Protein backbone atom coordinates (compact mmCIF):
# COMPACT_ATOMS: atom_id res chain seq x y z
CA UNK A 1 0.00 0.00 0.00
CA UNK A 2 1.33 3.44 -0.96
CA UNK A 3 0.89 4.96 2.47
CA UNK A 4 3.05 2.24 4.03
CA UNK A 5 6.04 3.63 2.22
CA UNK A 6 5.25 7.13 3.44
CA UNK A 7 4.81 5.78 6.96
CA UNK A 8 8.20 4.11 6.81
CA UNK A 9 9.82 7.37 5.67
CA UNK A 10 8.14 9.57 8.30
CA UNK A 11 8.91 7.03 11.02
CA UNK A 12 12.58 7.67 10.40
CA UNK A 13 12.25 11.43 10.83
CA UNK A 14 12.97 11.81 14.52
CA UNK A 15 14.65 14.26 16.82
CA UNK A 16 17.79 12.77 18.33
CA UNK A 17 17.29 11.48 21.86
CA UNK A 18 19.94 13.90 23.08
CA UNK A 19 18.15 16.95 21.63
CA UNK A 20 14.79 15.65 22.77
CA UNK A 21 16.05 15.45 26.35
CA UNK A 22 17.80 18.81 26.12
CA UNK A 23 14.62 20.57 24.99
CA UNK A 24 12.62 18.91 27.76
CA UNK A 25 15.24 20.01 30.29
CA UNK A 26 14.89 23.59 28.99
CA UNK A 27 11.10 23.39 29.29
CA UNK A 28 11.27 22.03 32.81
CA UNK A 29 13.71 24.76 33.82
CA UNK A 30 11.45 27.45 32.33
CA UNK A 31 8.42 25.95 34.00
CA UNK A 32 10.12 25.83 37.39
CA UNK A 33 11.31 29.42 37.06
CA UNK A 34 7.80 30.59 36.28
CA UNK A 35 6.19 28.58 39.04
CA UNK A 36 8.61 29.79 41.68
CA UNK A 37 8.10 33.28 40.35
CA UNK A 38 11.82 33.86 40.48
CA UNK A 39 12.16 34.70 36.86
CA UNK A 40 11.68 38.26 35.94
CA UNK A 41 13.43 38.80 32.69
CA UNK A 42 14.55 42.35 32.79
CA UNK A 43 14.97 43.24 29.16
CA UNK A 44 18.51 42.80 28.13
CA UNK A 45 18.90 46.41 27.10
CA UNK A 46 21.93 47.56 25.23
CA UNK A 47 24.14 49.54 27.62
CA UNK A 48 23.78 53.30 27.36
CA UNK A 49 27.54 53.64 26.82
CA UNK A 50 27.33 51.46 23.72
CA UNK A 51 24.52 53.67 22.38
CA UNK A 52 26.47 56.85 23.05
CA UNK A 53 29.53 55.48 21.27
CA UNK A 54 27.40 54.44 18.35
CA UNK A 55 25.78 57.87 18.05
CA UNK A 56 29.25 59.34 17.76
CA UNK A 57 30.03 56.82 15.06
CA UNK A 58 27.02 58.03 13.05
CA UNK A 59 28.35 61.56 13.13
CA UNK A 60 31.80 60.44 12.06
CA UNK A 61 30.58 58.08 9.36
CA UNK A 62 28.99 60.82 7.28
CA UNK A 63 26.92 59.93 4.23
CA UNK A 64 29.33 59.02 1.49
CA UNK A 65 27.55 58.02 -1.70
CA UNK A 66 28.63 54.60 -2.90
CA UNK A 67 29.13 53.78 -6.56
CA UNK A 68 27.88 50.25 -5.92
CA UNK A 69 24.75 49.43 -7.88
CA UNK A 70 22.24 47.75 -5.58
CA UNK A 71 19.56 45.63 -7.15
CA UNK A 72 16.43 43.96 -5.96
CA UNK A 73 14.28 41.52 -7.91
CA UNK A 74 10.90 39.98 -7.17
CA UNK A 75 9.90 36.88 -9.14
CA UNK A 76 7.01 34.40 -8.92
CA UNK A 77 8.04 31.20 -7.17
CA UNK A 78 6.00 28.06 -6.48
CA UNK A 79 2.73 29.99 -6.41
CA UNK A 80 4.24 32.57 -4.06
CA UNK A 81 7.26 34.74 -4.73
CA UNK A 82 10.95 35.11 -4.25
CA UNK A 83 12.87 38.29 -3.45
CA UNK A 84 16.56 38.56 -4.16
CA UNK A 85 18.59 41.50 -2.99
CA UNK A 86 22.03 42.56 -4.08
CA UNK A 87 22.37 45.39 -1.62
CA UNK A 88 25.85 46.66 -0.85
CA UNK A 89 27.39 44.63 1.96
CA UNK A 90 28.37 46.46 5.13
CA UNK A 91 32.07 46.33 6.14
CA UNK A 92 32.60 44.39 9.38
CA UNK A 93 34.67 47.22 10.83
CA UNK A 94 31.77 49.67 10.48
CA UNK A 95 29.64 47.57 12.82
CA UNK A 96 29.64 48.39 16.52
CA UNK A 97 32.06 46.50 18.75
CA UNK A 98 29.23 45.30 20.96
CA UNK A 99 27.49 43.67 17.99
CA UNK A 100 30.70 42.00 16.83
CA UNK A 101 31.35 40.66 20.31
CA UNK A 102 27.86 39.20 20.43
CA UNK A 103 28.38 37.56 17.03
CA UNK A 104 31.68 36.06 18.20
CA UNK A 105 29.89 34.54 21.19
CA UNK A 106 27.08 33.23 18.98
CA UNK A 107 29.25 31.27 16.56
CA UNK A 108 26.77 30.32 13.85
CA UNK A 109 23.51 31.11 15.54
CA UNK A 110 21.23 34.11 15.94
CA UNK A 111 19.92 36.29 18.69
CA UNK A 112 17.43 39.07 19.25
CA UNK A 113 18.36 42.44 20.76
CA UNK A 114 15.50 44.60 22.06
CA UNK A 115 15.31 48.39 21.65
CA UNK A 116 12.81 50.98 22.75
CA UNK A 117 12.54 52.52 19.28
CA UNK A 118 13.84 52.44 15.72
CA UNK A 119 16.07 55.43 16.52
CA UNK A 120 17.66 53.55 19.41
CA UNK A 121 18.41 50.60 17.13
CA UNK A 122 19.96 52.93 14.55
CA UNK A 123 22.08 54.57 17.23
CA UNK A 124 23.28 51.15 18.40
CA UNK A 125 24.21 50.13 14.85
CA UNK A 126 25.94 53.44 14.27
CA UNK A 127 24.14 54.13 11.05
CA UNK A 128 21.08 55.96 9.87
CA UNK A 129 18.97 53.39 8.10
CA UNK A 130 15.92 55.52 7.34
CA UNK A 131 13.57 57.80 9.18
CA UNK A 132 9.89 57.86 8.41
CA UNK A 133 7.71 60.68 9.69
CA UNK A 134 4.49 58.88 8.70
CA UNK A 135 5.32 55.78 10.76
CA UNK A 136 6.22 58.06 13.67
CA UNK A 137 2.56 59.18 13.72
CA UNK A 138 1.35 55.61 14.22
CA UNK A 139 1.05 53.58 17.41
CA UNK A 140 4.12 51.47 18.14
CA UNK A 141 3.59 47.73 18.25
CA UNK A 142 5.74 45.00 19.80
CA UNK A 143 8.15 42.67 18.06
CA UNK A 144 9.69 39.62 19.58
CA UNK A 145 11.10 36.19 19.23
CA UNK A 146 13.28 33.51 20.69
CA UNK A 147 16.74 33.04 19.36
CA UNK A 148 18.61 29.79 19.02
CA UNK A 149 19.45 27.69 22.03
CA UNK A 150 18.35 28.95 25.37
CA UNK A 151 18.44 32.68 24.75
CA UNK A 152 15.65 34.50 26.54
CA UNK A 153 12.55 35.54 24.64
CA UNK A 154 12.46 39.25 23.93
CA UNK A 155 9.64 41.63 23.19
CA UNK A 156 10.17 45.30 22.39
CA UNK A 157 8.98 48.03 20.02
CA UNK A 158 12.06 47.42 17.89
CA UNK A 159 14.17 44.28 17.71
CA UNK A 160 17.45 43.56 15.96
CA UNK A 161 17.85 39.98 14.85
CA UNK A 162 21.55 39.28 14.57
CA UNK A 163 22.57 36.20 12.63
CA UNK A 164 26.21 35.19 12.85
CA UNK A 165 28.33 33.02 10.62
CA UNK A 166 31.57 31.58 11.97
CA UNK A 167 31.58 34.13 14.75
CA UNK A 168 31.11 37.16 12.50
CA UNK A 169 27.98 39.26 12.02
CA UNK A 170 26.24 37.98 8.90
CA UNK A 171 22.67 39.22 8.49
CA UNK A 172 21.34 42.04 10.66
CA UNK A 173 17.59 42.53 10.57
CA UNK A 174 15.90 45.50 12.22
CA UNK A 175 12.22 44.83 12.90
CA UNK A 176 9.54 47.21 14.10
CA UNK A 177 5.78 47.23 13.97
CA UNK A 178 3.17 49.96 13.97
CA UNK A 179 -0.60 50.22 14.02
CA UNK A 180 -3.11 52.68 12.64
CA UNK A 181 -6.83 51.93 12.85
CA UNK A 182 -7.19 48.32 11.69
CA UNK A 183 -3.95 48.28 9.72
CA UNK A 184 -0.89 46.71 11.20
CA UNK A 185 2.43 47.60 9.58
CA UNK A 186 5.61 45.63 9.88
CA UNK A 187 8.91 47.17 8.88
CA UNK A 188 12.07 45.18 8.33
CA UNK A 189 15.42 46.54 7.22
CA UNK A 190 18.01 43.93 6.40
CA UNK A 191 21.74 44.68 6.35
CA UNK A 192 24.20 42.15 4.94
CA UNK A 193 27.57 42.20 6.66
CA UNK A 194 30.55 41.79 4.36
CA UNK A 195 32.10 38.36 4.54
CA UNK A 196 35.88 38.90 4.57
CA UNK A 197 36.42 35.52 2.88
CA UNK A 198 34.40 36.54 -0.19
CA UNK A 199 35.82 38.78 -2.89
CA UNK A 200 32.52 40.24 -3.91
CA UNK A 201 29.34 41.16 -2.10
CA UNK A 202 26.90 38.49 -1.09
CA UNK A 203 23.32 38.45 -2.37
CA UNK A 204 20.60 36.95 -0.24
CA UNK A 205 17.05 35.91 -0.89
CA UNK A 206 13.77 35.28 0.73
CA UNK A 207 10.88 33.17 -0.46
CA UNK A 208 7.25 33.24 0.55
CA UNK A 209 5.37 30.24 -0.75
CA UNK A 210 2.71 30.27 1.93
CA UNK A 211 0.93 33.20 0.33
CA UNK A 212 -0.38 33.20 -3.23
CA UNK A 213 1.10 35.96 -5.34
CA UNK A 214 -1.71 38.01 -6.87
CA UNK A 215 0.21 40.94 -8.35
CA UNK A 216 3.24 43.20 -8.36
CA UNK A 217 3.44 46.93 -8.96
CA UNK A 218 6.40 49.25 -9.33
CA UNK A 219 5.77 52.31 -7.24
CA UNK A 220 8.09 55.31 -7.34
CA UNK A 221 7.79 57.77 -4.48
CA UNK A 222 7.89 61.55 -5.05
CA UNK A 223 11.51 61.56 -3.87
CA UNK A 224 12.42 58.98 -6.55
CA UNK A 225 12.64 55.87 -4.37
CA UNK A 226 11.74 52.86 -6.53
CA UNK A 227 9.77 50.17 -4.76
CA UNK A 228 8.08 46.94 -5.76
CA UNK A 229 4.75 46.36 -4.09
CA UNK A 230 3.85 42.68 -3.95
CA UNK A 231 0.24 41.74 -3.34
CA UNK A 232 -0.50 38.26 -2.08
CA UNK A 233 -3.25 36.38 -0.33
CA UNK A 234 -3.02 33.75 2.34
CA UNK A 235 -5.47 31.59 4.14
CA UNK A 236 -4.78 31.64 7.87
CA UNK A 237 -6.95 28.98 9.42
CA UNK A 238 -9.96 29.82 7.29
CA UNK A 239 -9.58 33.60 7.20
CA UNK A 240 -8.22 35.11 4.01
CA UNK A 241 -5.74 37.93 4.44
CA UNK A 242 -4.46 40.20 1.69
CA UNK A 243 -0.84 41.23 2.13
CA UNK A 244 0.68 44.35 0.60
CA UNK A 245 4.46 44.35 0.91
CA UNK A 246 6.80 46.96 -0.51
CA UNK A 247 10.37 45.86 -1.16
CA UNK A 248 13.16 48.34 -1.80
CA UNK A 249 16.77 49.18 -1.05
CA UNK A 250 17.63 52.37 0.80
CA UNK A 251 20.94 53.29 2.46
CA UNK A 252 22.30 49.78 1.77
CA UNK A 253 19.44 48.22 3.70
CA UNK A 254 16.86 46.01 2.00
CA UNK A 255 13.44 47.02 3.25
CA UNK A 256 10.22 45.13 3.48
CA UNK A 257 7.36 47.31 4.62
CA UNK A 258 4.06 45.56 4.68
CA UNK A 259 0.55 45.48 5.90
CA UNK A 260 -1.89 42.61 6.04
CA UNK A 261 -5.66 43.03 6.10
CA UNK A 262 -8.62 40.79 6.60
CA UNK A 263 -10.83 42.39 3.99
CA UNK A 264 -13.94 41.55 5.96
CA UNK A 265 -12.72 44.04 8.55
CA UNK A 266 -10.65 46.57 6.63
CA UNK A 267 -10.48 47.78 3.08
CA UNK A 268 -7.59 46.55 0.96
CA UNK A 269 -7.64 49.76 -1.04
CA UNK A 270 -7.26 51.85 2.09
CA UNK A 271 -4.44 49.65 3.33
CA UNK A 272 -2.62 50.02 0.01
CA UNK A 273 -3.14 53.79 0.03
CA UNK A 274 -1.77 53.95 3.58
CA UNK A 275 1.24 51.86 2.56
CA UNK A 276 1.97 54.33 -0.22
CA UNK A 277 1.73 57.22 2.26
CA UNK A 278 4.33 55.44 4.37
CA UNK A 279 6.58 54.86 1.35
CA UNK A 280 6.27 58.51 0.33
CA UNK A 281 7.67 59.47 3.73
CA UNK A 282 10.99 57.67 3.09
CA UNK A 283 13.63 60.05 1.85
Amino acid sequence: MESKKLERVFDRVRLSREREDAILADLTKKHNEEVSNMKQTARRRVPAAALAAAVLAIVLAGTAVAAYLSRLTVTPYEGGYKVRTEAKNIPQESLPADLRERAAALGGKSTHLPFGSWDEAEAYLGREIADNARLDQMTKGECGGIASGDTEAVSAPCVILLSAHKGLPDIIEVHASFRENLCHFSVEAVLIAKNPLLDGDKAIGFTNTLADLTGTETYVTPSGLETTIVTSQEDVFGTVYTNYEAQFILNDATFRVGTSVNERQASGEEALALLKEVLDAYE
Partner: protein
Amino acid sequence: MADRRTAEEISGIYRRHVGTVYQVCLMLLKSVPDAEDAVQTVFRKLLEYGGRFESSEHEKAWLIVTARNECKNQLRHWWRTRRADSAELEGLAWEAPGDGELWELVLSLPEREKLAVYLHYYQGYSTGEAAELLGANPATFRSWLVRARRKLKDLLEEE
Protein backbone atom coordinates in the same frame (compact mmCIF):
# COMPACT_ATOMS: atom_id res chain seq x y z
CA MET B 1 -2.28 32.19 32.95
CA ALA B 2 -5.65 30.78 33.81
CA ASP B 3 -4.71 27.27 34.89
CA ARG B 4 -1.07 26.29 35.06
CA ARG B 5 -0.02 22.79 34.07
CA THR B 6 2.24 20.80 36.35
CA ALA B 7 5.77 19.85 35.30
CA GLU B 8 4.55 16.25 34.91
CA GLU B 9 1.74 17.32 32.59
CA ILE B 10 4.13 19.38 30.45
CA SER B 11 6.57 16.51 30.30
CA GLY B 12 3.80 14.07 29.35
CA ILE B 13 2.50 16.26 26.54
CA TYR B 14 6.05 16.81 25.32
CA ARG B 15 6.93 13.10 25.23
CA ARG B 16 3.63 12.24 23.52
CA HIS B 17 3.92 14.78 20.73
CA VAL B 18 7.51 15.93 20.30
CA GLY B 19 7.92 13.53 17.37
CA THR B 20 4.93 14.97 15.52
CA VAL B 21 5.98 18.56 16.17
CA TYR B 22 9.51 17.83 14.95
CA GLN B 23 8.26 16.12 11.79
CA VAL B 24 6.04 19.10 10.93
CA CYS B 25 8.86 21.56 11.64
CA LEU B 26 11.49 19.66 9.68
CA MET B 27 9.16 19.23 6.72
CA LEU B 28 8.39 22.91 6.58
CA LEU B 29 11.80 24.35 7.49
CA LYS B 30 14.01 21.76 5.78
CA SER B 31 16.82 22.41 8.23
CA VAL B 32 17.65 20.41 11.34
CA PRO B 33 18.88 23.34 13.50
CA ASP B 34 15.89 25.47 12.49
CA ALA B 35 13.47 22.62 13.18
CA GLU B 36 15.02 22.02 16.61
CA ASP B 37 14.69 25.72 17.46
CA ALA B 38 11.09 25.68 16.28
CA VAL B 39 10.26 22.63 18.43
CA GLN B 40 11.66 24.45 21.45
CA THR B 41 9.59 27.54 20.67
CA VAL B 42 6.39 25.55 20.12
CA PHE B 43 6.66 23.87 23.52
CA ARG B 44 7.56 27.16 25.20
CA LYS B 45 4.30 28.47 23.76
CA LEU B 46 2.59 25.51 25.38
CA LEU B 47 3.96 26.72 28.73
CA GLU B 48 2.31 30.08 28.14
CA TYR B 49 -0.96 28.60 26.90
CA GLY B 50 -3.52 28.49 29.67
CA GLY B 51 -6.31 26.58 27.89
CA ARG B 52 -7.06 22.98 28.78
CA PHE B 53 -7.02 20.17 26.26
CA GLU B 54 -9.94 17.79 26.07
CA SER B 55 -7.88 14.82 24.89
CA SER B 56 -4.54 13.73 23.53
CA GLU B 57 -5.91 14.32 20.02
CA HIS B 58 -6.82 17.88 20.98
CA GLU B 59 -3.28 18.42 22.31
CA LYS B 60 -1.82 17.09 19.09
CA ALA B 61 -4.06 19.26 16.89
CA TRP B 62 -3.11 22.38 18.92
CA LEU B 63 0.59 21.56 18.63
CA ILE B 64 0.40 20.89 14.87
CA VAL B 65 -1.31 24.23 14.28
CA THR B 66 1.15 26.04 16.56
CA ALA B 67 4.10 24.34 14.85
CA ARG B 68 2.81 25.35 11.45
CA ASN B 69 2.42 28.95 12.65
CA GLU B 70 5.89 29.03 14.16
CA CYS B 71 7.45 27.69 10.96
CA LYS B 72 5.53 30.25 8.99
CA ASN B 73 7.07 32.97 11.16
CA GLN B 74 10.54 31.53 10.75
CA LEU B 75 10.13 31.24 6.99
CA ARG B 76 9.67 34.98 6.82
CA HIS B 77 13.23 35.58 7.97
CA TRP B 78 15.76 36.36 5.29
CA TRP B 79 18.63 34.52 6.92
CA ARG B 80 16.73 31.23 6.81
CA THR B 81 17.45 30.87 3.11
CA ARG B 82 21.13 30.56 3.83
CA ARG B 83 20.61 28.11 6.65
CA ALA B 84 18.31 25.99 4.51
CA ASP B 85 21.00 25.80 1.83
CA SER B 86 23.28 24.06 4.28
CA ALA B 87 20.54 21.87 5.69
CA GLU B 88 21.89 19.05 7.79
CA LEU B 89 19.42 16.45 6.64
CA GLU B 90 21.90 13.73 5.79
CA GLY B 91 21.78 12.42 9.36
CA LEU B 92 18.64 10.40 8.57
CA ALA B 93 19.19 6.68 8.12
CA TRP B 94 16.77 5.11 5.65
CA GLU B 95 15.38 1.63 5.91
CA ALA B 96 14.95 0.87 2.22
CA PRO B 97 16.45 2.12 -1.04
CA GLY B 98 14.42 4.97 -2.45
CA ASP B 99 13.15 6.20 0.93
CA GLY B 100 15.64 9.07 0.94
CA GLU B 101 14.49 10.04 -2.51
CA LEU B 102 10.84 9.96 -1.42
CA TRP B 103 11.64 12.16 1.58
CA GLU B 104 13.43 14.64 -0.68
CA LEU B 105 10.42 14.69 -2.96
CA VAL B 106 8.05 15.26 -0.03
CA LEU B 107 10.27 18.15 1.08
CA SER B 108 10.12 19.66 -2.38
CA LEU B 109 6.30 19.83 -2.37
CA PRO B 110 4.62 23.18 -1.65
CA GLU B 111 3.92 23.59 2.07
CA ARG B 112 0.21 22.95 1.79
CA GLU B 113 0.66 19.76 -0.19
CA LYS B 114 3.27 18.25 2.08
CA LEU B 115 1.16 19.02 5.15
CA ALA B 116 -1.81 17.43 3.41
CA VAL B 117 0.17 14.26 2.67
CA TYR B 118 1.56 14.14 6.21
CA LEU B 119 -1.72 14.71 8.02
CA HIS B 120 -3.79 12.39 5.87
CA TYR B 121 -1.45 9.52 5.05
CA TYR B 122 0.79 9.50 8.09
CA GLN B 123 -1.23 10.95 10.95
CA GLY B 124 -4.40 9.29 9.71
CA TYR B 125 -6.66 12.34 9.76
CA SER B 126 -9.67 12.14 7.47
CA THR B 127 -9.68 14.74 4.70
CA GLY B 128 -12.41 16.63 6.58
CA GLU B 129 -10.46 16.65 9.86
CA ALA B 130 -7.18 17.62 8.21
CA ALA B 131 -8.89 20.38 6.22
CA GLU B 132 -10.36 21.77 9.43
CA LEU B 133 -6.96 21.69 11.09
CA LEU B 134 -5.45 23.70 8.27
CA GLY B 135 -8.42 26.02 8.01
CA ALA B 136 -9.10 24.91 4.46
CA ASN B 137 -12.20 23.98 2.56
CA PRO B 138 -12.39 20.14 2.35
CA ALA B 139 -12.62 20.27 -1.45
CA THR B 140 -9.52 22.47 -1.60
CA PHE B 141 -7.72 20.12 0.76
CA ARG B 142 -8.57 17.16 -1.46
CA SER B 143 -7.19 19.00 -4.47
CA TRP B 144 -3.87 19.51 -2.59
CA LEU B 145 -3.79 15.78 -1.89
CA VAL B 146 -4.47 14.91 -5.53
CA ARG B 147 -1.71 17.24 -6.71
CA ALA B 148 0.74 15.84 -4.15
CA ARG B 149 -0.09 12.22 -4.99
CA ARG B 150 0.44 12.96 -8.67
CA LYS B 151 3.92 14.31 -7.93
CA LEU B 152 4.82 11.40 -5.65
CA LYS B 153 3.19 8.75 -7.84
CA ASP B 154 6.28 7.25 -9.45
CA LEU B 155 8.15 6.76 -6.21
CA LEU B 156 5.14 5.48 -4.33
CA GLU B 157 4.41 2.87 -6.95
CA GLU B 158 7.95 1.43 -7.02
CA GLU B 159 8.81 -1.74 -5.08
